[in-house]
């Protein structure tokens, strides 16, 4: 690395002396692989030697707009298995794009090693530069260093695993019909958000090994399958009652109830699923787990990438490597990405993670470099330290959105964004403004904003609490309601039907108020069946 930098430096200097105009990395809007390569080198120079980023090797792929639509209708994964929902997303995105309601994403980047990012062929060279700085260095650094990604995802194995999953699903479709596979995948997708162990343990990471293991498992089963065993009498029927009681207790402990990872539980314990169906659940669970960190780091991930691209583009321009037109174009695109409309604006759709992330990170830099007395009081550790690079890298590595906001949202940013807090009680006919961007409100606003990024608060807490294996085998779920917030009913009932399909027997869900332990509602798939009749 140092070697490369050393080699480049004299080159650039001599170029600069001889012909001041030729310092530009490129001219005009068309890109070539040559200008791309040159620009990449210049970006890398700043990213590694100035910002000190630590990234996976980059693999940058140039794709057409149709391929871009393809890629992001399949949840941004290049190799995902086939499913109708991706087709649905594709027709919708294509429609939006063709009608001009929405532009295409400029890039997609995959948390893998090497880090793959997609750039669009129709982008101008200025955009290509921006995108490379954003994705190939900003996101890439974040993926490699953030603790959640390190703990939850296997960047080495993901591409191989997806390849395996795709082939596996295709093989299942061939063997058991598309409809049969779809039924399982639909149900599994409905539970994707509830397919991780949030509280209990960390996942095993080696996806390549997992794919290998599944292959072995199947081969073993096929080799040793003997239908005769099925005809042997089961001894459960003539067991003694006490014995059975003990067994149930044992089994319950063995089932480790309550269980928050619904997909895992069904995969391991459903009485009706075939091995290949369990494997499908396993695949969906793995993919859900892969996206779990991304869901918790939207603000940080985008903030990091945006901060990095803005810094790098400015540096390139200051060094005289970017033509003015290209810089203006990049800035224009940058400012539309971080646009944050006010709450009463028609375009308002919540808080823009790019805007919030960038504002906070720029503010951290400011606090490190030129703190105000207020910052000294709020952030004594970093105020005036001058080491904004180290502070940011530490934040990028060790926080997720919720804790990042809780730790670093400064009064200055709250004031700038004019954040305010509304209390919404469904029994009240009015909203109450509880806090605004003033001295008294800062802490509450910060806490509320942090909480609004806490997956534990955004996603309903639903766990499997009991299975009556002796009787009707009904699967009992409990929704622990915080602040009386209910589930959206239509989708709730649909999901329950999906669980019933996977479990094979009836499924009940009880809503319990977290603070009072009062039962708020109770539904069951049996009721739904009655209604259908």
């Amino acid at each position, binding site marked *: 690395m140092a070697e490369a930098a050393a080699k480049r430096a004299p080159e650039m200097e001599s170029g600069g002396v001889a012909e001041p105009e030729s310092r530009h990395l490129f001219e005009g809007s068309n890109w070539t692989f040559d200008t791309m390569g040159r620009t990449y080198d210049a970006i890398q120079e700043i990213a590694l030697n100035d910002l000190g980023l630590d990234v996976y090797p980059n693999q940058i792929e140039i794709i*057409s707009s149709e391929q871009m639509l393809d890629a992001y209708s399949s949840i941004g994964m290049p190799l995902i298995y086939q499913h109708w929902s*991706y087709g649905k997303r594709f027709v919708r995105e294509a429609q939006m794009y063709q009608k001009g309601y929405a532009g295409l994403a400029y890039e997609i980047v995959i948390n893998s090693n090497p880090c793959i990012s997609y750039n669009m062929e129709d982008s101008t060279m200025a955009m290509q530069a921006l995108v490379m700085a954003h994705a190939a260095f900003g996101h890439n650094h974040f993926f490699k260093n953030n603790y959640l990604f390190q703990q939850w995802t296997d960047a080495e194995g993901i591409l191989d695993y997806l390849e395996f999953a795709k082939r596996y699903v295709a093989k299942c479709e061939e063997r058991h019909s598309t409809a049969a596979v779809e039924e399982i995948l639909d149900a599994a997708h409905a539970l994707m958000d509830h397919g991780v162990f949030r509280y209990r343990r960390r996942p095993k990471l080696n996806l390549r090994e997992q794919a290998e293991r599944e292959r072995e498992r199947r081969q073993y089963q096929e080799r040793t399958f003997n239908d005769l065993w099925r005809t042997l009498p089961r001894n459960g029927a003539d067991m003694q009652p006490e014995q059975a009681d003990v067994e149930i207790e044992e089994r319950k402990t063995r089932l480790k109830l309550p269980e928050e990872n619904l997909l895992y539980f069904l995969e391991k314990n459903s009485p009706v699923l075939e091995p290949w169906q369990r494997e499908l659940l396993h695949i969906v669970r793995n993919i859900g787990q892969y996206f779990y960190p991304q869901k918790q780091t939207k603000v940080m991930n985008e903030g990091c990438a945006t901060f990095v691209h803005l810094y790098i583009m400015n540096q390139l321009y200051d060094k005289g490597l970017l033509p003015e037109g290209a810089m203006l174009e990049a800035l224009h695109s940058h400012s539309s990405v971080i646009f944050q409309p006010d*709450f009463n604006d028609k375009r308002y759709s919540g808080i823009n993670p790019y805007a919030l992330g960038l504002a906070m990170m720029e503010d951290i830099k400011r606090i490190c470099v030129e703190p105000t007395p207020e910052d000294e009081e709020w952030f004594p550790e970093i105020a005036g330290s001058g080491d904004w690079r180290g502070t940011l890298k530490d934040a990028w590595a060790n926080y997720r959105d919720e804790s990042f906001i809780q730790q670093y949202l400064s009064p200055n940013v709250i004031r700038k964004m004019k954040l305010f807090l509304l209390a919404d009680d469904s029994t009240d006919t009015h909203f109450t403004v*509880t806090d605004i961007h003033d001295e008294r409100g800062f802490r509450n606003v910060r806490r509320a904003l942090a909480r609004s990024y806490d997956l534990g608060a955004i996603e309903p807490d639903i766990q499997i609490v009991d299975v009556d294996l002796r009787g009707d085998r009904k699967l009992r779920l409990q929704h622990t309601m915080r*602040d009386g917030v209910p*589930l*959206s009913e239509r989708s709730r009932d649909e999901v329950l039907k999906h669980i019933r399909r996977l479990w094979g027997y009836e499924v009940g869900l009880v809503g319990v108020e977290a603070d009072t332990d009062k039962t708020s509602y109770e539904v069951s798939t049996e009721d739904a069946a009655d209604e259908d009749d």
Partner: protein
Amino acid sequence: MAMPHFIDRRLNPKQKSLGNRQRFMRRARAQIKEVVNKSIRERNVSDISNGETISIPTKGIGEPRFHHAPTGGRRDRIFTGNKEFNAGDRIPKPAEGGQGEGGKKATDRGEGEDEFQFVLSREEFLDMFFEDLELPDLVKTSLKEVCSYKPHRAGFASSGSPTNINVLRTMRNSFGRRIALKRPTSGDEDGLTQRILDLEARSDLTPDERLWMAELHKQLEELKCRRRAIPYVDPFDLRYNRYENHPEPNTNAVMFCLMDVSGSMGEREKDLAKRFFMILHMFLKRRYERIEVVFVRHTHEAQEVDEETFFYSRETGGTVVSSALKEMLEIVHDRYPPGEWNIYTAQASDGDNFSGDAEKCIELLDTALMPLCQYYAYVEILDEREMELFQDPEKGTALWQAYRAVGASWPNFETKRIAGPGDIYPVFRELFAKQAADG
């Protein structure tokens, strides 16, 4: 740090998501079907075979998850861009369904949540359209038609009209013949004449020269004689382009849609009629370059109208079917000479007719209309209950009986009772089956 890896994927196979699209289409089949059926009502008879932008309800293609309801319980909402609020302010909640839920759901695509919009390709649309018409997979249309003849080049002939002379062939023959018969050229004649003139110009001719000149005169005479005897172009040389008349399908077709629009024809009946007209139009479109559609509606009197009026305006009055036939006949005589136009007729009615008019219809069809028409399809639209009553094709209204009689004597006259879209296709099937057997 290694050089980045740039990979050009633009040439990778396209349409990677086709499989996903097909899976989605299958999934949403029921909803798409419904929308397609509805859209048929809004389409013109002639534009059925375009694609269609449709929006379908998300029911059935939803992807449910456990998620919190947008309202209910106690929650904190956080917003940007405070203007005049102070802590403790109370803001009335917007009315139900208002824009209160700015935050989570109403993203740019949030509004599209309930209606899902996308474009069906032409093939996908037709698949859906044909589905309940029960068309066989492959319909080879070999419609019978009036042929006009068009000359096609077919080699050469030794006789023909002067306009068709093939100059090249003719001249080649003439040239060969002239060489073979040693016809003197005009150059030979000019040379000889010149020599005679040269001799004549001199005054001091020797006797030998005089003899020689007489000889030359004789030669010239012979040469001229020979040139006269052997014509430059002999009728024997003539070659003509030869044409054969090939029967040529007539590329114009006119389709008459006749419909009873008296009060008894309701929304459902007109809808079925429209599908019936559409499908005939489809078949014709595959065959002809140009199709015109003429709409004739009738109550107790008939008139030509535009499509909009045809399907959607209501009329009151009696029902005299023959008035429509007369109107059609007039239009044919005025605008569509049968030599140039293939005439197809589709008639839809609920079977009511003014008593005594049926005979007039038979008369008109037998003597005037049927000889002009390629094909005449009549559908009687019944409701399901009547359909059971009229199981027996022998029984029916006076009009039905009359048309049955016409059908017996004209093979290109088809009658059918329909109560649902599934009954429409057989009207055509028989015709095409017959044609295929002939062909």
